[in-house]
């Protein structure tokens, strides 16, 4: 394909969509599939087939519409009036929605608790979000490249190919984008490093090995808009001079893998991937590598070992992947979400992106909002928004009338933030100052029924399970920390155990080889910092008695 053919394809798709009386979109992301969107699809299909006006309407799947706790969701779009969003849809409700919508009627009034009721789209859950990366999620059919192209798809690539690779790197650097995998390293700078590294052969890797409990940003993005990630990756390859790319996706994400495979196939067929992309001199190929269920493979050096076919163990850095990565060649590894951000920056400019967010954290961030909230789901918010806004406005407050106790960010590498810090702006530095991290975007809200030592123990069990075992602090240290936490929870710990716990946490943090071990103690350290009283209250009764005697 030549660049000039792209708008023609886009117009053709737009015309096709405009020719329909309406478009019925049902969410086909993993969350909605789990709550029954398969039956919704069948219901919609059947109803359209039975309805004489059905042929004039279009039915399409989309990716995640955001409010996963209210799924399955269906949205109906009309050319001449605002769309309608339905929540908790099931097969029967689907038939009713088709009947109403094709008849051109406003949705019939139904009982408040029934399936398939209308969800207003002006609630804070939607209005307080800023969709940049997720702009097309829930809008386009992720399995049709035409739909993506009709929504400005691959225009950023065209634009980038018109720039020099240096200019692309500069643009990304000026945008202030930082890695969305959690560490927040400036993306443009990383690109520059790979670009300037010596070597003819270079690689680009998209890290889709999302492993934090409760986090599903990357999965959703790959499921809802695979081409945007792919396009960002192609632009990156052009910018750094790579010839080969890999998607590293965990095996638990079959739908994401299927959609990526399809996206790669479609893009290759259209000449957007492979030899001489868009008629240029630039060639780039992408393969998918499936992880085998090890959390540590999300760590970049372990991930590379896994791609190379070795046991997924982290290694020491330096050398960083930018110097010596896959098979010893310079390698750019970015998180899936980071790649997903690229097209918007290239299309709208670094200045536009730089205008969103805080001084040091630019743009938007996707969070998987879970826990004891009224609204849980996938949200995209500008950097700098406060936790309070996320919890109370977007999240709709703590569920079941309980009170807020803590927000856990960053998964097993992160920490717990108590109520007194709810007004902290969400950005890399502020969260770090609170003893947590931005992480990849998991955000779990706990109410006053949660026991914080138990929460810490939960995360430590996760780390013990997922430690690769290569270095002793992580292998043995986390197991010992877990042992102490178990004692605490069982009411068998004494003060000396808490002292040992704190010291051990620091040792593991300071001496572990990779990020997994270095951050594994964070949930313990942060709960000790904000909820020490809970630990102390759980010390063994016998122990306290002894303490009294000796005092």
């Amino acid at each position, binding site marked *: 394909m030549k660049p000039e053919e792209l708008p023609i394809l886009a117009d053709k798709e737009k015309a096709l969509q405009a020719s329909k009386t309406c478009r019925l979109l049902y969410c086909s992301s993993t969350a909605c599939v789990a709550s029954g969107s398969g039956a919704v699809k069948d219901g919609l299909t059947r109803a359209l087939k039975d309805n004489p006006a059905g042929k004039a309407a279009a039915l399409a799947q989309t990716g995640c519409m955001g409010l996963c706790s209210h799924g399955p969701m269906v949205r109906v779009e009309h050319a001449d009036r605002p769309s309608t969003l339905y929540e908790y849809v099931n097969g029967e409700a689907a038939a009713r929605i088709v009947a109403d919508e094709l008849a051109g009627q406003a949705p019939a009034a139904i009982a408040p608790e029934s399936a398939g009721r209308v969800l207003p789209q002006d609630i804070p859950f939607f209005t307080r979000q800023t969709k940049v990366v997720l702009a097309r999620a829930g809008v386009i059919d992720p399995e049709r490249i035409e739909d993506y192209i009709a929504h400005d798809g691959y225009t950023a690539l065209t634009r980038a190919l018109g720039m020099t690779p240096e200019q692309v790197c500069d643009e990304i650097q000026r945008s202030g984008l930082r890695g969305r995998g959690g560490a927040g390293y400036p993306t443009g700078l990383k690109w520059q490093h790979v670009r300037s590294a010596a070597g003819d052969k270079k690689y680009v890797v998209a890290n889709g090995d999302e492993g934090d409990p409760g986090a599903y940003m990357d999965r959703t993005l790959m499921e809802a808009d695979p081409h945007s990630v792919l396009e960002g990756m192609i632009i990156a390859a052009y910018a750094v001079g790579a010839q080969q790319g890999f998607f590293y996706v965990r095996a638990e994400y079959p739908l994401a893998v299927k959609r990526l495979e399809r996206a790669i196939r479609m893009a290759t067929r259209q000449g957007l991937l492979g030899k001489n992309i868009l008629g240029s001199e630039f060639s780039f190929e992408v393969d998918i590598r499936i992880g085998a269920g*090890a959390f*540590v493979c999300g760590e970049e050096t372990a991930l590379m070992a896994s791609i190379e076919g070795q*046991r997924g163990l982290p*290694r*020491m850095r*330096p050398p960083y992947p930018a110097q010596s990565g896959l*098979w*010893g060649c310079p390698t750019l590894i970015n998180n899936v979400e980071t790649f997903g951000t690229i097209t918007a920056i290239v299309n709208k400019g670094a200045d536009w992106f730089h205008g969103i967010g805080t001084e040091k954290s630019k743009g938007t961030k996707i969070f998987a909002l879970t826990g004891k909230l009224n609204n849980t789901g996938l949200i995209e918010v500008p950097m700098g928004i406060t936790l309070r806004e996320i919890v109370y406005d977007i999240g709709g407050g703590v569920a079941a009338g309980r009170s807020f106790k803590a927000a856990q960010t960053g998964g097993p590498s992160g920490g717990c933030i108590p109520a007194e810090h709810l007004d902290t702006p969400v950005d890399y530095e502020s969260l770090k100052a609170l003893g947590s991290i931005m992480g990849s975007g998991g955000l779990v809200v706990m109410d006053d029924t949660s026991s914080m030592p138990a929460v810490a123990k939960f995360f430590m069990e996760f780390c*013990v*399970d*997922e*430690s*690769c*075992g*290569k*270095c*002793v*602090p*992580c*292998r*043995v*240290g*986390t*197991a*010992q920390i877990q*042992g102490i936490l178990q004692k605490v929870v069982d009411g068998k710990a004494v003060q000396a155990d808490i002292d*040992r716990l704190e*010291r*051990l946490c620091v*040792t593991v943090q*300071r*001496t*572990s*080889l990779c990020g997994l071990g270095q951050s594994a103690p964070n949930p313990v350290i942060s709960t000790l910092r904000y909820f020490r009283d809970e630990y102390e209250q759980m010390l063994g009764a016998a122990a306290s008695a002894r303490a009294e005697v000796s005092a």
Partner: protein
Amino acid sequence: MITLTIDGQPISVTPGTTAMDAALANGIDIPRLCHHPDLKPSGGCRLCLVEVDGRPNPIPSCGLACEPGMVIRSQSDQLTALRRDTIDLFVSDHPLDCVTCDKAGACALQKYAYDYGITETSHDFKLGRTLYQNDNPFFIRDHQYCILCAKCVRVCDEVIGAHAIEIVDRGFGSHVATPFDVPMADSNCVFCGSCVQVCPTAALLPVSRLKQGREWELEHKKTICGYCGVGCGIDYRTKGNHIVYAQGYPEAPANGEFMCVKGRSGWDFAQHPDRLTHPLVRKDLARELGLSAEAWTLGPTQRAALADFVPVAWETALNLVAAKLAAAVKAAGPDAVAGLASARCVNEDNYLFQKLMRAAIGTNNIDHCARLCHASSVSGLGMAFGGGAMTNPIRDIRDADCLFVTGSNTTESHPVISYEMVRAVKSGASLIVVDPRQIPLTEHATLWLQTRPGTDHFVFLAIAHVILREGWADRDFIAGRTEGFDDFAASVAPYTPEVAALASGVPADKIVLAARMYALGERARGASKYAAESERGHSGIFWAMGITQRSNGTEMVLSLANLAMLTGQIGKPSTGVNPLRGQSNVQGASDMGALPDVLPGYQKVTDDGRRKAVAEKWGLPDLPATPGLTVVEVTKAASEGKVRAMYVMGENPMLSDPNLEHVEEALRALDFLVVQEIFLSETAQLAHVILPAASWLEKDGTKTNTERRVQRLHPVLKAPGEAKPDWWIVAELGKRLVALLGGPAVNALWSYTGTAQIAAEIASVSPAYRGITHSRLGDEGLCWPCPAEDHPGTPILHRETFTRGLGKFHAVATRAPAEATDAEYPFVLSTGRVLYHYHTGTMSRRSEALHWREPGGWIEINAADAAAAGIADDADVVIRSRRGEVRTVARLSERVQPGVVFLAFHWAEAPANLLTQDFALDPIAKIPEFKLCAVQIVAAVVP
């Protein structure tokens, strides 16, 4: 060089050096458990953390590259606290039962616990691993002591190339295992014990070490391994007159810390009850002479031998042998006597032996098994360069950019050299293997050119053709250093890759690729160590018996020499032409003149000046000037009655020589046969007198390994019974023969106080050894030529000029094997060795653990052929050639191609050399074509 500071000490290092290596090289000891100088840094033990100015967190020094101006501290309160905490974690998962532990005193964790004052863990003691595995006689695996430093896994992968073990599971439950935890013997393990060598704790221990005492009770005795020609330095840990275990040491020049299974575990033969302990005389002869048995206490072999032999005193035996040899000389002239020296005996033994034959008896009829292995290398390289030995040292191999290996199953025959090759490949070198058999090295090969047997010469010539055609030749080198190029260039013109492909079955494009890789020294990846000094990468050629044991061996060697000269891949580090010598002292025995045509130092017997000079040193007016008989010729002469008496020192022609039926006939036809041995070998069984010798573990002296390195042996054990060092026996016979046969009545000529005195005489006779004395040979040894006492030795030959001046190209052509297959004998038989045994098995088959691993003979046959012949795996088969037949079991394998079978020559019960032919020798080197003969194979009728 860059300069940095460690612990206040200014240190200069080359860029790329790690802080750990910089510290260790400057006497700063940083604690470490997973570091090993031969392995890539792992960073798992976290003990080597150091502080670096400007860096917020401590950094492991093993992975920290030095930078100019860096300020590093290896000791501080913070580091001490972190290290204490780390050791505390280690010992929470490791039993502190040091008081009963075999590793106590040699355990690295124990050392650091001591250094940092950790007496017990402050945590809850919790063991992650409790398996105890003793599934083999070489080593045990006691997982409770494992600290998961992964040194075993890394050495197995990075150095040995076996990758038999990995860490399985993860986190606290991780443990080291074979794939699917199959027994060691069913894994890729080659039992080299390198994992045991590097294990810092008691997790891996040699079986022989268990409950044999504490480390400090053991003596250290370093000597040179007596198996193959690599010449590994081994530190034997002994207690009393027993070896407890063998350990490598980093200073050993050929092998560093690593050895093969035979070196590490094959030493127990020395104290096998079968050892010969007393001189023996055949019963019929004893009766004839009226000798009666001495009242010795005898071992089982001697007791068994009593059916045929009578034990006698040394004096009786020596007198008898001298009298018999002298009688043969008097009756039929000195050339009626022939001697076989030994490539397993030290230089001093061999020197005296050839001196005995030449000076005391007066014949050049002396040869040894070099004739059967690298005679064609010696003749070919002699013609091309003026000297026939490995040109480059073993340690160079790891830095090569391209390795060209042909006719060498290096992994099994020279395992330690294969480790060097694996290291080169792991760091990015390309490896070209030209071999008909799928040898283990093909797993590491960048290119494997699988030829049909006997067609490899087409490939070599086509490679030369391509190099010339593509302009990859080194024109400057050819112009400045060589002669005969034009004839050679014309001779390779017909050998296009397509012609070679048709003949050999190797695709033409692979031949072109191989030509390019070799000529330009192209790496598979990474940068060349020599990038700064030379335009092309450095390529080396390596070969062994697959090239030399051929009726056109000399021509094949010339072809390989042509390739090196054509591309200038010689005279520089990591290049050269490198024949890998078989036996531990085959190089030295040849250097000593245990050959029919040369005196010590390859001085031709036909060169009057040189010969007379040597004669003068020996107090004689002259020495015999006609070249004597070679090994196979001796056999023929004996069967024809021309040779009447033979003296065999440490050789076993009854298994090692071709066409054994003929050999036996010849040996039985002799008037007198004396065999000097450590065991009652197949040859000794035919002897009139057997003289018991000391084994290599009981001797001193020097050996010269495959890289021409002269190294010193030191006795590790006491010789059993009355067994004596070979040089002593030879000298005693010398005294007696001089007395009987006349010659200069200088008894002093045969009076030696020890090997050092003999070595001094060698230095005075052989120019290449002139500067080599025992006192100069430390751990490093010396590579000859070493022409003066202040000369550092010559690890790399032909640097500025070839030994013969200009290198000489030879125009050679291909030639068909001497014996072709036909309808009756449709299979090609190739002979060779297996990893666990050595030569005729006299030593290795008496080692308990080696025997356990490979208890008996087998023939390798392609599964397709086996199916066609109705032969099942492990079934009895009979193999017949025009010379004889043997019976063994079939091992179905993809390693051999259809139409080819492979049988090692170790097995006395299935001697491959009953089948091999002796009618077609290489015309120059006189080496038999062991590698190719025609056989038939049928399923045996099981009685």
